[in-house]
């Protein structure tokens, strides 16, 4: 379903033929049980919930609703696997299992990509070219660490923690599972993982892959469910470590729940990242960077460049080019390889985004949305930008988690550093300038965990990721990511 687009700048009508990715090679089950102790088991409540395709609201499969009893079963299996097998296995053998998982994922990459697009609404181009290959690479990367941990922590004895409880969000379902599981296994921990309720599919296919890899039973357990399932993991007394990626609100609840326990915690929470354009930046690349920063994955990105700061002297030009670029974005069926902007992950999230757009208008900011046809079924939101936004405005302060960009201007370097740092969050920032010395000035003064210079939304298994301030603590990726899963003595 390619929508007809008009490029206003050049006055050309673009009309792409649809180029749909086939779903024929994806063999999904109608019903998915819980993956506990190497087996597929029915939820003790007997309850299942539906996972829907947000692009057309069709039900994809039924998913087991795990409760406290199921979580307990999973933790017991993980503890047993930890004590009996995984913690005593020679590290080089542990590595080989993780390498195997990485290879099997690579072999089933296309299937995973299609499932991810169906379940999450993200474009097939993104799941095929970014999410799935990166997820494979994180496993491949961390596999190699398993027998080299003494090099990561010189002069210390490195031990695993035990059972890790991991709760992941719906924006990068498979990739987040990889970020969590791979380092946990490499360091010798066993895992109980809960995928998000709207996007459990690829974690369940990953469970099939893990089964196929011959990984000892109980080393990885996948318990699907809702918020209460996650709460049961957080509060389980026999878990040694909680890793959570999600909203700052839920992160705070978890931090509170863990206060007074000996559980180790890492949080990767929300953000409101500044993307800063200086007047000497290559403007066209910067405009692409702005688009990628905020509209990538429909803006469902914790590190999205949602606050744009443009130097005053080029603001008019940047905004004009940005609008023109937005006019040429394709919104529609995520399975179409032409699509730039897919579906919003859920109805609930779409409502949240609409709420913020309404607030933005009420606050007096000037809104721009390109004219594009929104499919009648499914959850979609046109790319949106707000001009004349105040620093104190709600839409410039709170995380929207959708394709909504606020634009402010600045005159001096000092001013933009102050404005960019004026946020409770500190996950990432973008800096666009031709001047190397300015990049290093900004990167040393911005209070954020990741600084992208003349690029945005780049990820790599070797590169630590994580935030300052209310964006959470702990890092994922690279050598530093190992620290979240080890005890040093």
């Amino acid at each position: 379903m390619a929508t007809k687009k008009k490029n206003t700048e050049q006055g050309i009508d673009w009309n792409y033929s649809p180029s749909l990715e086939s779903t024929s090679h994806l063999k999904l089950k109608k019903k998915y049980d819980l993956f506990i102790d190497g087996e597929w088991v029915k939820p003790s409540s007997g309850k299942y919930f539906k996972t829907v395709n947000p692009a057309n609201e069709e039900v994809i499969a039924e998913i087991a609703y795990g409760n406290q009893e199921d979580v307990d079963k999973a933790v017991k299996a993980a503890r047993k696997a930890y004590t009996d097998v995984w913690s005593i296995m020679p590290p080089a053998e542990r590595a080989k299992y993780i390498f195997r998982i990485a290879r099997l994922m690579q072999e089933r990459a296309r299937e995973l990509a299609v499932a991810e697009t169906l379940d999450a609404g993200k474009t097939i181009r993104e799941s095929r070219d970014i999410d799935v290959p990166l997820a494979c690479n994180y496993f491949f990367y961390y596999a190699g660490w398993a027998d080299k941990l003494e090099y990561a922590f010189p002069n210390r004895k490195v031990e695993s923690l035990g059972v890790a409880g991991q709760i992941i969000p719906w924006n990068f379902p498979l990739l987040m599972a990889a970020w969590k599981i791979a380092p946990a296994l490499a360091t010798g921990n066993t895992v109980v993982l809960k995928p998000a309720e709207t996007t459990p599919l690829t974690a369940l296919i990953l469970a099939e892959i893990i089964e196929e890899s011959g990984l000892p039973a109980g080393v990885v357990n996948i318990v699907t469910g809702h918020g209460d399932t996650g709460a049961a993991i957080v509060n389980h007394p026999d878990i040694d470590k909680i890793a959570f990626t999600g909203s700052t609100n839920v992160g705070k609840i978890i931090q509170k729940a863990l206060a007074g326990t000996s559980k180790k915690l890492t949080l990767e929470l929300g953000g409101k990242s500044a993307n800063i354009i200086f007047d000497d930046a290559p403007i066209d690349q910067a405009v692409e960077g702005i688009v990628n920063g905020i509209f990538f994955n429909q803006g469902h990105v914790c590190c999205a460049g949602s606050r744009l700061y443009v130097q005053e002297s080029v603001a008019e030009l940047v905004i004009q080019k940005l609008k023109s670029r937005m006019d040429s974005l394709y919104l529609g069926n995520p399975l179409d390889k032409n699509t730039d902007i897919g579906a919003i992950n859920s109805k609930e999230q779409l409502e949240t985004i609409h709420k913020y757009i309404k607030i933005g208008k009420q606050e007096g900011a000037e809104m721009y949305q390109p004219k594009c046809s929104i499919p009648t079924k499914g959850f979609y939101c046109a790319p949106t930008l707000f001009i004349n936004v105040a620093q104190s405005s709600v839409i410039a302060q709170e995380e929207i988690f959708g394709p909504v960009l606020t634009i402010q201007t600045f005159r001096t370097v000092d001013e933009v550093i102050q404005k960019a740092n004026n946020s409770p969050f500190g996950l990432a920032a973008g800096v666009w300038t031709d001047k190397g010395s300015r990049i290093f000035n900004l990167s040393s003064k911005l209070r954020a965990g990741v600084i992208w210079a003349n690029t945005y939304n780049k990820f790599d298994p070797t590169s630590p990721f994580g935030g300052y301030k209310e964006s959470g603590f702990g890092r994922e990726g690279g050598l530093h990511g190992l620290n979240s899963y080890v005890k040093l003595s």
Partner: protein
Amino acid sequence: MSRLEILKTYKIYIGGQFPRTESGRFYSPLDKKGKPLGNICLSSRKDVRNAIVAARKAFGSWSERAAFNRGQILYRIAEMLEGRKEQFISELIQQGSTKKNAEEEVNLSIDRIVYYAGWCDKYQQVLSSVNPVASSHFNFSVLEPTGVVGILAPQNTSLIGLVSIMLPVICGGNTCVVIASENLPLCAVTFAEVLNSSDVPGGVVNILTGTNKELNETLSTHMDVNAIVYGGDDLEALKQIQENAVLNVKRVFSYSKDWSKADSQDLYMISDTQEIKTTWHPIENIGGSSSSY
């Protein structure tokens, strides 16, 4: 009538090709019972020079590959070796090993390749640094491969010694010219076939057979070789190599370890054939704003 077995012609490996030696010569090392192992190429000085040219040509693209990609390729070597285990075991037995030792040697070789595959995208993070200089500069040091490395494989093993000293060199993005064990050359030649089917670009590893006496000299005096890794135990030969190295200030590393030990592998074998590059970059220092939020 029983079927007549096809005998293998053992070749050398240069630039991804399998020629016989340009000299047309051969030698016949003997097995423990005094039976010839085969007509092995007696490589010439010209073969060494050709191999160095091939290694230099391959260096640019191999060293500039993403570290992750090198890791994938090294892992692929392990996959290919796993699939041809039986052949290596039988060659090791042919060269005097017991079945049990042969199996252990091949298994350990595979695991060691996986070990170094894992290092490809990690050693940089462990060994490089950001240096807190006092001026307003961003100053960092990274590792870069030395270049073309001449490798003299250990004499007393056919496979594990070769794997143990070669893998750290290519893991770090160098290319190499290997002189195989003189009297136990079979696995080196067959290992070239594994490399050839493992996505390792031609020229990254070149493997020659012949006499050390003849080939060491050419390798260690060649002006386009940047380092020598010596795995033998002939101290006189090592001294000669060290003296020859002076010509173009080659780095010489000599290892004498029991390669059959599981822990005869480490990060610092990779860093031996690495250079350190330090970059200074100014940090703009204007205005009074600080990161006080």
